[in-house]
């Protein structure tokens, strides 16, 4: 057992033992779940099932870049397996159904206890538990240590809380999958790594979690790997992530080389005292860190893996690609606040890329037909918002949006999971091979799935930013923060690629509004095409459409409540519907210093009239977007996917995601293949190493032997020659000396 070597906190440990001492159990419980479920998955399982390619419906796969997201098909209803799909429920599924969610629930309860204790102690300093020294080489000392502070507590609660709900949902969603234990094993492992990421007390430990969640993402995206497209999607996610990881690593190298440590607390002190505002070193470090974030959190230019990641099971998309893993980048920047506060140019870069990504992804989402793809691009867009927040130094706003987004995006994904589950059940009952995820095959589902319909509307209103739902408060907070910092901050004083910072920030504010408008439109579009209008699923299937079982709908309800009231976490000052700025005050000990540095010492504030105007404008835009979509879109004119005609013109560009994947393929992938094949393989490996070095050395040895044998002729004449030549050489050496 890991007994802590040392505990540090200051007042927090004064609270004595209690929950915080068991901090190490929080990540260890999911790891235990992984071990148990993993071992169970190694026992024999029924091999047939949806992962069998012949059982998969023949969804077109298109080019290799666009992984078929159509492979996410849960098996049909449990016990009524027919001849083509024998019941594939795993032998140990019952035990796994208990172990998987239970460890998460225990972790969550422990996290709540820790949170309560930490809050009660009123401590302002982080609580650190050191377990052992991981690395001690030369001047580099890295401890295995977990740290609790206000920021990590928030992340902890979100990860374990939303994670528990998704585990419960998965019990229903994946119930007949033959890989059931393996699924929960991977899911538990993912939570373990995510907790390491969030709780790590230094950059290397964070990086271990960072890499680990990338690994689990790969494993889970390619869960049904027998279909090549899914495996490709998994690989794509991992490889694109890796590019970002390179940036993270370089940043860590620079940090260690210049400041001698990688511990958060140590670095905060030394960077604060040594670094220069706007210095080249700090800016470089921040830019490389941000490169890591673009990979993990799917921003431009490394976002292309996220839509393809929809090839994994829907709960995976909910957990990893909505609520937790993709927010790791936001967490990283919030954690590195002391660096970004000193690098206005890097911060501006974060804001710009976040805003651009928000708009860019929103435009693509306008024209996607796969329900999960719409949500995927929506995630990319909302992540852009979060980066705008933390990039502008409004750490509260960014983290707030992270939390609310976790609620309503998880709700949206799980809701779409319920929809897909129902569609699949219907298609399996009629042995149809239509695409269960394409909105053109849906429509009018409100009648059959009222709970899902209602809850997803709550989430849609939340994401669009309609008060009083959670998204309104968080999104408005971000936009207001950007506006305020455009007026007065170190960012406004800086120049980004020659453009004055305030102009950049104002432009990003406008981009944020544009993205909000498009968010409202495409989300309403999604709801309309899925739940409203006439049903396009087909006559025979219609009778099989029904609400998902309660094990799946219950988590939706919890998330729905959270999306509705989550806004009360941080009410703005001008809307005192309850205690205001709770989250802001909570996070102040962590990020407050840097936030103030950015706003040049004073709490930013706007006149209440300006605030009301901005809020009014945002709400108006959201409502306008919803109404615009409601009126303009004609679900009656849709035809099922099989009969739909291909897009044309600009619609085609949007539907094909601006051909970015194709561009990457041309400019990056193919040259890499060509270089690898021609230069590295043929040139260096075969030619140089095999040919020159291996065969060449053999050739040289043979040649030397041949030369040697030429000297040993057995003839006296040769020996006389050699003798004389030797004398010549020796005497020459003596002479020349």
């Amino acid at each position, binding site marked *: 057992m890991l007994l802590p070597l040392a505990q540090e906190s200051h007042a927090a440990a004064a609270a004595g033992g209690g929950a915080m001492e068991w901090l190490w159990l929080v990540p260890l419980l999911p790891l235990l779940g992984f071990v148990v479920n993993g071992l169970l998955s190694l026992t024999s399982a029924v091999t047939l099932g949806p992962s069998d390619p012949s059982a998969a419906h023949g969804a077109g796969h298109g080019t290799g870049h666009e992984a078929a997201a159509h492979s996410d098909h849960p098996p049909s209803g449990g016990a009524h397996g027919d001849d083509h799909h024998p019941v594939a429920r795993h032998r140990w599924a019952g035990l796994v159904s208990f172990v998987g969610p239970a460890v998460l629930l225990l972790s969550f309860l422990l996290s709540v206890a820790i949170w309560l204790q930490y809050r009660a102690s009123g401590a302002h300093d982080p609580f650190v538990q050191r377990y052992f020294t991981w690395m001690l080489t030369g001047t580099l000392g890295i401890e295995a240590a977990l740290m609790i502070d206000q920021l990590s507590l928030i992340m902890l609660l979100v990860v374990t809380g939303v994670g528990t709900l998704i585990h419960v949902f998965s019990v229903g969603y994946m119930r007949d999958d033959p890989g059931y234990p393996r699924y929960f094993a991977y899911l538990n492992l993912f939570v373990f790594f995510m907790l390491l990421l969030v709780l790590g007390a230094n950059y290397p430990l964070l990086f271990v979690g960072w890499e680990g969640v990338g690994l689990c993402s790969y494993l889970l995206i390619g869960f049904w790997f027998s279909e090549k497209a899914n495996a490709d999607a998994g690989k794509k996610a991992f490889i694109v992530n890796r590019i970002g990881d390179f940036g993270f690593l370089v940043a860590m190298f620079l940090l260690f080389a210049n400041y001698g440590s990688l511990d958060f607390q140590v670095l905060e002190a030394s960077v604060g005292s040594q670094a220069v505002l706007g210095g080249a070193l700090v800016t470089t470090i921040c830019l490389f860190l941000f490169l890591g974030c673009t990979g993990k959190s799917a921003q431009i230019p490394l976002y292309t893996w996220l839509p393809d990641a929809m090839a994994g099971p829907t709960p995976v998309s909910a957990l990893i690609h909505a609520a937790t893993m993709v927010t790791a980048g936001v967490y990283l920047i919030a954690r590195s606040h002391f660096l970004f506060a000193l690098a206005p140019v890097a911060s501006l870069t974060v804001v710009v890329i976040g805003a651009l990504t928000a708009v860019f992804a929103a435009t693509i989402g306008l024209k996607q037909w796969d329900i999960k793809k719409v949500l995927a691009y929506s995630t990319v867009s909302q992540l852009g918002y979060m980066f705008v927040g933390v990039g502008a130094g409004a750490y509260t706003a960014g983290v707030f949006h992270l939390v609310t987004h976790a609620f309503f995006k998880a709700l949206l994904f799980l809701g779409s999971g319920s929809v897909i589950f129902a569609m699949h059940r219907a298609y399996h009952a009629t042995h149809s091979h239509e695409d269960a995820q394409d909105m053109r095959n849906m429509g009018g589902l409100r009648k059959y799935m009222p709970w899902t319909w209602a809850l997803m509307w709550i989430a849609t209103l939340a994401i669009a930013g309609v008060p009083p739902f959670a998204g309104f408060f968080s999104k408005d907070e971000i936009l207001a923060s950007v506006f305020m910092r455009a007026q007065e901050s170190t960012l406004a004083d800086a120049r980004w690629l020659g453009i004055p910072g305030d102009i950049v920030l104002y432009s990003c504010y406008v981009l944020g509004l544009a993205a909000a408008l498009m968010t409202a439109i495409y989300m309403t579009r999604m709801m309309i095409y899925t739940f409203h209008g006439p049903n396009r699923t087909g006559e025979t299937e219609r009778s099989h459409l029904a609400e998902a079982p309660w094990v799946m709908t219950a988590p939706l309800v919890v998330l729905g409540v959270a999306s509705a009231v989550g806004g009360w976490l941080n009410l703005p000052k001008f809307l005192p519907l309850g205690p205001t700025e709770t989250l802001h005050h909570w996070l102040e000990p962590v990020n407050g210093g840097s936030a103030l540095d950015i706003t040049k010492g004073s709490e930013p504030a706007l006149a209440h009239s300006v605030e009301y105007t901005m809020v009014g404008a945002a709400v108006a835009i959201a409502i306008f977007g919803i109404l615009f979509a409601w009126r303009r879109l004609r679900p009656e004119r849709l035809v099922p996917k099989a009969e739909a005609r291909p897009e044309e013109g600009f619609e085609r560009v949007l539907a094909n995601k601006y051909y970015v994947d194709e561009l990457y393929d041309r400019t990056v992938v193919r040259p890499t293949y060509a270089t690898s094949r021609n230069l590295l393989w043929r040139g260096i490996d075969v030619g140089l190493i095999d040919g020159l070095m291996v065969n060449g050395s053999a050739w040289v040895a043979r040649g030397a032997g041949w030369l040697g044998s030429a000297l040993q002729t057995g003839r006296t*004449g040769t020996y006389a020659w050699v003798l*004389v*030549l030797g*004398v*010549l050489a020796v*005497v*020459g050496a*003596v*002479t020349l000396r």
Partner: protein
Amino acid sequence: MPQGDLPLFYTFHFYLFGIIAVVSALLFVTRRSPVAAALWLVNTMFCLAALYVLLDAHFIGAIQVLVYAGAIMVVFLFVIMLLNLGHPSEVADQRGLGWKVTAGFVGLALLAEIFTLTRVRIPDRLALPPGTMADEVARGGAIAPLARSLFTEHLLAFELTSILLLTAIVGAVVLARRNSDAG
């Protein structure tokens, strides 16, 4: 012969015998007939003996004629006759032109190196005053100085050489014996 008495006579004869020795050696190396070559070598040795005398090594000069030219070369000629190699051989005895040219270059290189080495000056403190050898010969005769050194300082080498000669005699007899019974 002490140089001081008749320097020109001395020098002239020194060069005379030297040049004849070199020319004889060249001729020796280039003859096709082994007998002719042997005879030219004998001539070279005669000239060398003369040089030895001019260098105040009278006894060695005499021994050169007696032993080298008179015994060793005779043995050579004897063997040549015994093996009936006197005629110019039908098979080419000398290597081709390319080899000769290369050998010539090698020889020139070696010559150059040796010349460079002989440029070394002997320090005066190591060198005996000129004419020392001539005085010794004048005092004690040609043989006495040599014998004195031979039987005192180099006695061991002398004894060993006698054993060497014994070995050589036995070896020569054994090697050259016609062993009809041993096969």
